[in-house]
């Protein structure tokens, strides 16, 4: 299990390759990557992510440990950035390795659902002349009820 919280960009392909390498006993690897999505108007200049140092790492480790308890997993990776990033840049990724695909998929979705609403990150969108905090969505909170 590896949890990384950093402001530096990360190399999604290299992380995915390293995570998947030499998994002779894990038939299924799932990755999810969140990318800074431009606004529909195409005017997003930057996404800024604030976090709560200390609690962030603890919350992510707790979520990953819960996933390992609930599903048969060989390994879990969570990388989440904070600071300023531009459209097209990866914000975060999770990866799961499991003997079977159902466990790998469900655990990755569980990690994402919890990470969205239970890890202390806050997004702010910067457009020309204005900056707005992204509001939490009811559907993200509702997504937790399925687990």
């Amino acid at each position, binding site marked *: 299990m590896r949890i990384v919280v950093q402001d530096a960009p990360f190399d999604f392909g290299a992380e995915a390759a390293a995570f998947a390498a030499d998994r002779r006993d894990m038939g299924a690897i799932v990755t999810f990557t*969140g990318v800074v999505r431009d606004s529909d108007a195409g005017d997003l200049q930057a996404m800024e*992510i*604030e976090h*709560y140092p*200390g*609690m962030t790492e*603890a*919350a992510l480790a707790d979520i990953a440990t819960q996933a390992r308890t609930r599903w048969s997993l060989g390994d879990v990776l969570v990388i*989440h950035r904070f600071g300023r990033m531009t459209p097209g840049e990866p*914000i*975060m990724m999770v990866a799961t390795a499991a003997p079977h695909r159902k466990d790998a998929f469900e655990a990755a979705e569980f990690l*994402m659902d919890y*990470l*969205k*609403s*239970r*890890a*202390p*990150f*806050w*997004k*702010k969108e910067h457009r020309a002349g204005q900056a707005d*905090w*992204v*509001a*939490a969505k009811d559907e993200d*909170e509702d997504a937790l009820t399925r687990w």
Partner: protein
Amino acid sequence: MDVLYFAWVRERIGLPKERIETQAETVADLVAELCAREDRYAAAFADLSALRVAVDQKLTGFDAPLEGAREVAFFPPMTGG
């Protein structure tokens, strides 16, 4: 006790962290104390349903006891991922 603010709560109150000496028994008591102090606190805490709280870096409710707590943090619902 250290009190921390994040995102728009931090912006409304105007600082990320402060040290507060308090006898408040619960988070709600602490919020009432802060609101009584200055308008910017009252503005930040006007709608508690729009806020989340962590005591010693664990998410909890506004009725949580503060006995022995070293750090309380207030922030809006999280938007990670």
